[in-house]
């Protein structure tokens, strides 16, 4: 399959952040990651759940669960 590509401009700072983020992941390049994220956003229908944020209460709960499952002593 041959796809056509174009160029978009993003701030350097963002590129640096993406570089860090994709380290050790399946993404081979910043372009690949950016395409993946943009596809996700474009496809978004508005009814999707938002990304979760950290909460101490959740952390406490999961810690107890992981202990019950034998992951933590």
């Amino acid at each position, binding site marked *: 399959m041959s796809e056509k590509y174009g160029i978009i401009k993003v701030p350097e700072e963002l590129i640096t952040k993406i570089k860090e983020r994709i*380290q*050790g*992941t*399946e*993404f081979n390049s910043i372009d690949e990651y950016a395409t*993946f*994220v943009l596809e*996700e956003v474009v496809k978004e229908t508005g009814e*999707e*759940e938002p*990304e*979760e*944020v*950290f*909460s101490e*209460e*959740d*952390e406490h*709960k*999961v*810690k107890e*669960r*992981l202990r*019950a*499952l*034998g*992951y*933590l*002593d």
Partner: protein
Amino acid sequence: MIILAIDALEYSLVEKFDCNNLKQEYYGKTDISEFSEPRTMVLWSSFMTGKNMEREILAKGDKEMWNTKIELKDTFFNGFKNPRIIDLPGFNYVKEHHEQERVLLKNYFDAKTDEEKDKIRKAYNNLAFEHHRRIKQEFSAALNDDHDLLLGYFSVADVVGHLNFGNRTMMKMIYRDLDEIAGSIKDTYIVLSDHGMEKLGMFGDHSGYGFWSTDFNELENPRITDFAGLIKEIQV
């Protein structure tokens, strides 16, 4: 026969991300309600022996449990001439690696500051992804060898999921990769998970059912212990 053994592969995410290679023709949830908790070591041990191993594994205690090593003769793999099993807990997994993951997990919860937690989470994820790439390579090389049974065990969805299940982009990336691995298999295969995963804020807890798929047989709510017999049956 090829088995994709995927830890914590979650039915609802396979659906949501539309992973067609993981789904195959027939797919559904497994019934693991006979177990008191969805414990990884208990479930895979029960899978390979074809019998409920909960009592036996729990008797070892939480620490020793991870050292479980079931002998070939006590598993259904023994019915094959040239089986190849990659990194399966309770059989031949790389203990040191999975131990290292649990150490980082503990460090994460022990860490006092957000920065520290962030750093450990990254190291933890990287360790899991690195291991995943190694296993993926091993598995894809083994696909070309002459095995009458090949089982690849993939832990990334579980390990990363525990600290990142609320991160949809990261989970989607993992599911996409697992789906690609399934897509690279040219023979008959079964996809099986021990349990799924449910969201606990940004974290992930084990869910009370597993996932199965085949392209040859509709199964009705199979138990994880049913697969030993089933696989032996369809072996030609």
